[in-house]
């Protein structure tokens, strides 16, 4: 057995990704067959740009899901003699086992670490973006709708966060010393409360006229929400279902904190634009409560730009997570996430480029996919 040449390396890698290809084919076949019944999602398959973007994003999503099947070696396994091995090296003393994309400076498999990195990135970025959106929407809607003091105050606070250079903020928020002071927990306590408030107010506004159902829905939301809240923010969940590694919590909270002011500004701007529409006046004349108007009249009509921004923002959050990893903030050294593997690889970059280039290309393709997806969605949602 010899070292592999490039066509063979790529071929072997493609075979490793087999579960992903199958899943992609199934998703695309189903979606294209039923695309007329699937609303905006279905119309995405009319635009080639959107389809390419969706394909790339789903590729990484399935990679994250099936990571255990795809990897060729454990992400932390070190094999002697494979330090900085070039791509396609045969592992010494083994039959037909290769480091497909080479070995890194600690003799670990670059390919497997890149695949496991996808899982880590995709488990944080979308969730953090979602929470940032809930914070931004919960504050931006009333700020745009009511205006006045609340608007002035929250806008000032949002501008304050936005005027901070992101990297400085990360250095201030994501250090081990900060964790001892409890500031991340306080931030988490504030930020994680918003999703609970958002869903509770959403359901309350909808079913206000039907108290039994309202009490049931809001009660369930509060029970589950506060249960998760106690576990995630304070690590105080008695059953232990909801918990978060303090390191991860720190990273998560700072990413949400950086993202939510921008979402707030977007939502506020759209709300100010939409509140003078006829359907809002009609709802006001009907005597609907302000929160009903905001959440069930204005918000659904603002969904187009918000969905597009959501896609872009997941990409931006991925970049932010990479930045954190690049500066070695808030991640353990063994973590396979892309930012920190790029950081590890850059020391020997001009001699052994592959340990840094592989995760760099992975990160780039994911963000590119999200940007293309957002572009496709924008194009299709403008056709209404």
């Amino acid at each position, binding site marked *: 057995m010899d070292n592999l040449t490039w066509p063979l390396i790529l071929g072997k890698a493609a075979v490793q990704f087999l579960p992903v290809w199958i899943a992609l084919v199934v998703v695309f076949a189903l979606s294209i067959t039923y695309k007329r019944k699937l609303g905006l999602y279905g119309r995405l398959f009319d635009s080639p740009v959107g389809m390419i973007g969706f394909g790339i994003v789903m590729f990484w999503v399935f990679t994250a899901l099936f990571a255990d099947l795809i990897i060729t070696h454990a992400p932390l396994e070190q094999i002697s003699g494979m330090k900085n091995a070039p791509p396609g090296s045969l592992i010494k003393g083994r039959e037909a086992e290769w480091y497909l994309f080479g070995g890194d400076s600690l003799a670990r498999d670059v390919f497997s670490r890149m695949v496991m990195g996808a899982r880590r990135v995709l488990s944080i970025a979308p969730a953090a973006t979602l929470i940032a959106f809930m914070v931004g929407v919960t504050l931006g809607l009333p700020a745009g709708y009511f205006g006045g003091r609340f608007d002035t105050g929250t806008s000032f606070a949002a501008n304050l966060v936005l*005027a901070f250079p992101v*990297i400085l903020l990360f*250095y201030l928020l994501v250090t081990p010393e900060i964790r001892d002071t409890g*500031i991340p927990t306080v931030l988490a306590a504030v930020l994680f409360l918003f999703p609970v408030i958002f869903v509770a107010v959403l359901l309350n506004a909808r079913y206000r006229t039907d108290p039994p159902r309202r009490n049931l829905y809001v009660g369930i939301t509060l029970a589950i929400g506060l249960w998760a809240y106690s576990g995630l923010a304070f690590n105080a969940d008695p059953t232990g279902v909801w918990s978060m590694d303090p390191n991860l919590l720190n990273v998560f909270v700072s990413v949400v904190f950086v993202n939510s002011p921008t979402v707030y500004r977007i939502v506020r701007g759209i709300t100010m634009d939409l509140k003078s529409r006829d359907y809002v006046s009609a709802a006001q004349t009907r005597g609907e409560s302000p929160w009903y108007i905001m959440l069930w009249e204005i918000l659904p009509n603002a969904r187009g730009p918000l969905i597009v921004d959501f896609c872009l923002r997941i990409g931006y959050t991925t970049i932010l997570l990479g930045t954190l990893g690049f500066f070695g903030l808030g991640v353990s050294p063994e973590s396979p996430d892309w930012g920190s593997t790029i950081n590890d690889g850059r020391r020997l970059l001009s001699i052994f480029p592959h340990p840094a280039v592989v995760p760099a290309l992975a990160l780039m393709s994911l963000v590119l996919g999200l*940007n293309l997806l957002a572009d496709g969605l924008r194009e299709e949602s403008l056709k209404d």
Partner: protein
Amino acid sequence: MLLFTIRRLGVMLLTALALTFVVFYMTNLPPNLEKLAKSEASVRMSDEDVALWLDRNGFSSSVLTRYGEWLGVMPGWTRTAEDGTVTGRCITKGVAPTDAPARCGVLQGNWGYSTVFKQPVIEILSRGLGHTGWLMLSVMLVMVPSALIIGVLSGMKEGSRLDRVLSAFSIASTATPEYVSGVILVALLASATAGISPFLVESGLISGKTLFQGTATSAMDDITFWNFTLPVMTIALYGIGYIARMTRASMTEVMTQQYIRTARLKGASFPTIVLRHALRNALIAPFTVIMLQFPWLLNGVVIVETLFNYKGFGWTLVQAAGNNDIQLLLACSVVAVLVVLITQLISDIGYVLLNPRIRLA
């Protein structure tokens, strides 16, 4: 206009105060101070010793008081030891305590002393800003014209093949953060073993080992095309895509306006229409975007200076933050915050001046 500017300046001042206070608070948290005491005096200090050291060096007063002292609006602390010697914030060696000024903070021009570099902060900062200034200038010179050209070219005929190609390039470049494009550029152009440099050496096209240099350390003394291209390109690439997309959007909107149709109907040639009728109107929106890029560039500068080991402002910031150098980090954040706020102000005022349709009371 005047009132608008004054009000903006007021808000800006308030923001600057609030932000510097936040940074001050975060850098002066008890764990950071403890670390400072241990690194300055002795690593094996007991908790009582740490408290004593902090008390002797003026860290025992409240955060607000210390912020005031740092800013220079409160008198600096003084302390009389048991043997009668007077120490204080503003009392330097060799100056009698009675002659020392009462206040010495940022407003008096006293930025403090860096514990890592063992130099006054102001010296380190001005040196770093000098280096970064050259980098920023080169980035702007590369980024702005190329972004505007790409944007105008792709926006003047929406949907054409040229538009598709340039738009794809813009999207790809906005999807590539600095630490990714830097790594790829170095691997491609500045590696002796990979990329295109080995081929160029073999065929005798370049005399050195690599096409470009992978570090910019030598650029601090002497900027050359060889050592400065990669850092500049890395920062510029990320910005080019964004500005180009904004310019394209603005250009396509202008091209559908009535006066463009009029110009076309009267028989003006296409270059004339683009250059004389469309261009000026299309460049209003990108102007704001370019100004708002500055804070973003700041991020890029921090990453690129770390990646290419170029000891400018961003590198200083990372060193200060990583080594708990409180005074230096505070000074860096003041500079960063001021850059952001001033560019916001310029972009607001410039927008009003450029666009006569906007009138502000």
